[in-house]
């Protein structure tokens, strides 16, 4: 979609002379947009996103999540079509409606076809339930409904596109805000339950699922007001106007507030949320670890789960009281052993394979991860590791009475938080040291790095072992969080998740790891109803990242510079020519 528009826009400008030509092209684009929208709509229906999300209400009694997907599609298609359509406002609106009609027509076609043929043999979601959503429960008789519905939505979307700038932004923001608040409704409501007044507010704004109608109205008003008044940018401008000294004194309380918020966060929002936050923190910690191996030294290690497993099983074996427990140690005595074992394991696996470069290293480490996974669940080690049933009833790190606030996942959250801060500290110190520079040099050019006296094996092995150690720590805490280690927890997705966190967050960037974990671990964990489509969204998010933000969400300074167009070499500078040639 975007590629087409980007290539077409300059053409249009060039073809200013032949107006009918460019007009025809614009209409063609509108048609294409409508058809693409239709295909996306079919996709949403046939992979089951629309029917699966349908039971979940966004605004109670008004609109479900499945319908939201379709409405969003119609509005987006209309909006985009209106910006492409030629001529004045009427044409733009007509274009938007036309694109909507095309999108809807494909959906109508699905309903009609579905009544004649049994499409379920191909796509199990081509069911009457799906058609009922598309046709407001009319079934085949309402096959015309999607077309009309999408035409109206397209026109509405086009109308939004024609609004003046500020208003347009306000409308878009309020729609997005509605969806976000609706999705997070139960989360926001939980802390409100603590006292009767806030509970009453909560009941007014939120239904059992999603927002209430008044809640939706309040949300829209709040977002629009925010957009129009822009308090955030005002505060920022105010801050920028302050003298340096004052600003610095303000950062300290802001920092303290931030820390208090992070500490309070899982406590206020309930046990499930605490579990999610603890998991996110665990991944942050492991992300920091892999950031050394992958982000700094550039070693694409996809066998991270192997060391995670070593840490997890070590703690399980050393602390569990049951049949597999071998030592009955306390958690705290077991963790250092787990870290050291994981590190030794890293050395053991790393030594033979660190001579392998780039992609091949990824495959080799992937293989190791799989070997460990198979071993963990195998009959061979069943007597030792418990096979698929694993080692259960691992004691919590801190034994507290069951009614204490530390009884749940919260204590792991706090422990993981402290560990993550320590790991981040270690990572930053190393990054700024001789060792960190050697890692980056190896990432940049291994041969040259070695010719400058850097021992490749030693240096790479250190990166690998440190990554392994932090993976082991992650595994140990994971056992503390789950209270058990079962072989199905040891899977490839642990490795892939951690690697994806770093790629999405930004290679080598410490804040990037935090943001990446929240996006890739926290959000999917929160929306369990999406679990079927977790990896679909994952894939879409990764592709979008690679296209629009190849450096990650919060790229490190080096990555930022990498992507920055060099400006020091002037185009007119004669010496620039051989430089470019030499580097190419």
């Amino acid at each position, binding site marked *: 979609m975007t590629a087409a528009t980007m290539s077409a826009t300059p053409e249009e400008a060039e073809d200013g002379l032949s107006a009918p030509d460019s007009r025809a092209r614009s209409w063609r684009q509108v048609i294409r947009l409508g058809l693409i929208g239709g295909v996306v709509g079919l996709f949403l229906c046939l992979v089951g996103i629309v029917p699966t999300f349908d039971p979940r209400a966004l605004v109670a009694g008004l609109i479900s999540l499945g319908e939201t997907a379709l409405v969003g599609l119609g509005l987006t298609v209309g909006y985009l079509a209106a910006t492409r359509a030629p001529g004045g406002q009427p044409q733009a609106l007509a274009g938007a409606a036309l694109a909507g009609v095309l999108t809807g027509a494909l959906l109508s076609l699905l309903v009609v076809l579905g009544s004649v043929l049994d499409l379920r043999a191909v796509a199990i979601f081509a069911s009457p339930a799906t058609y009922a959503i598309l046709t407001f429960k009319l079934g085949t008789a309402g096959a015309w409904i999607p077309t009309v519905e999408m035409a109206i939505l397209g026109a509405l979307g086009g109308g939004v596109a024609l609004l003046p700038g500020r208003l347009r932004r306000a409308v878009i923001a309020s729609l997005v805000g509605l969806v976000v608040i609706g999705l997070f409704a139960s989360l926001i409501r939980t802390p409100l339950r603590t006292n009767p007044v806030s509970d009453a507010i909560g009941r007014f704004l939120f239904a059992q699922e999603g927002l209430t109608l008044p809640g939706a109205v309040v949300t829209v008003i709040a977002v629009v007001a925010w957009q129009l008044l822009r308090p955030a940018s005002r505060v920022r401008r105010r801050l920028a106007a302050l003298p340096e000294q004052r600003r610095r004194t303000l950062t300290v309380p802001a920092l303290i507030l931030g820390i208090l918020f992070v500490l309070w966060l899982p406590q206020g929002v309930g046990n499930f949320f605490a579990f999610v936050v603890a998991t996110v923190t665990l991944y942050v910690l492991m992300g920091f670890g892999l950031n050394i191996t992958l982000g700094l030294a550039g070693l694409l290690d996809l066998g991270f789960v192997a060391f995670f497993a070593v840490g997890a099983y070590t703690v399980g074996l050393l602390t569990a009281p049951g049949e597999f427990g071998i030592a009955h140690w306390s958690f705290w005595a077991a963790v250092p052993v787990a870290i050291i074992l994981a590190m030794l394991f890293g050395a053991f696996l790393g030594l033979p394979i660190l001579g392998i470069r780039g992609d091949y290293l990824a495959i080799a480490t992937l293989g190791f991860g799989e070997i460990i996974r198979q071993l963990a669940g195998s009959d061979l080690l069943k007597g030792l590791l418990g096979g698929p049933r694993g080692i259960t009833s691992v004691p919590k790190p801190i034994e507290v009475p069951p009614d204490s606030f530390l009884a749940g996942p919260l204590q792991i959250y706090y422990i993981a938080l402290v560990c993550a801060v320590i790991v981040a500290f270690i990572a930053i110190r190393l990054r700024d040291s001789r060792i960190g520079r050697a890692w*980056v040099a190896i990432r940049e050019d291994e041969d040259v790095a070695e*010719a400058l*006296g850097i021992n490749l094996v030693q240096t790479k092995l250190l990166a690998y072992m440190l990554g392994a150690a932090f993976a082991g720590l992650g595994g140990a805490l994971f056992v503390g969080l789950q209270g058990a280690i079962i072989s199905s927890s040891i899977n490839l997705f642990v490795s892939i998740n951690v690697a994806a966190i770093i790629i999405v967050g930004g290679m080598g960037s410490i804040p990037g790891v935090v943001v990446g974990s929240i996006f890739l671990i926290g959000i999917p964990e929160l929306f369990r109803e999406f679990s079927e489509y977790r990896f679909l969204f994952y894939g879409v998010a990764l592709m979008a990242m690679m296209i629009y933000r190849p450096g990650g969400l919060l790229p490190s300074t080096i990555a930022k510079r990498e992507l920055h167009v*060099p400006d*020091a070499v002037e185009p007119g500078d004669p010496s620039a020519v051989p430089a470019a040639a030499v580097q190419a």
Partner: protein
Amino acid sequence: MADSPLVVAQGVTKRFGGLIAVNKLDFTLEQGAIASVIGPNGAGKTTFFNCIAGFYKIDDGEITFDGQSIKALRRDQISRLGIGRTYQNIRLFANMTAMENLLVGQHQNLHASWIGAVIGLGSVRREEKLAHDEARRLLRYIGLQGRGDTLASNLPYGDQRRLEVARALAAKPRLLLLDEPTAGMNPAEQGQMTDFVRRLRDELGITILLIEHAMRVVMGISEKITVLDHGEKIAEGPPEVIQSDPRVIEAYLGRGSTSDPAPSPRPALAAADAAPPPSGG
């Protein structure tokens, strides 16, 4: 030891499959000398460099540096003995700053362990500070003061060349191998680079071996020139002798005019200054 040669190569042979890139080469380099290796494209000059620096393992023969055999050593071990190098195609760490490049260059002279770095020992901090001072001193030495935070790939070409030399200097080498240090430079820049290289020897006492195509540079700077063709040494001696050696002229102009119908891309000795340097070699 001052009188014994720094580098002695005997019968060095390097084959790539059926191709003999360097054939039974004997070569000596005196302490504190500035010497050049020249020859037409594909003569085996860079291969010979790569053999000394440990990028290639030699198939036959022996190379000693300061009396010690280096043919079985890894690149990092060779670097630690005191051999630094630059590359025909600049190979800076493009996504590191000039400063960081120079800090990596000092790697082998720094001693901080990873645990020391994590704890932030006083000795590690002092060492880091000295390393930064040294890097700034090197930046000044190559005229890049104040440009330390510039990304290496964003520096102008000539500065990149000099930065690469400085990165090699940061390791405090006794022998510096410069692979076409003036490639792609105009005559004025070539002159500056020649002066710079001479200063390295005169002020820092570094022995220098270079591969060079620009004849004016070669003739102006070298105390000894070794000419390679097809992996074999065809002449050796001071510039005056090399300039008039018939075999050298033949190697550069082509053997007779019968076997080579296309005009040779190899620059003739006289024309070499003006012509852009051919790549490869």
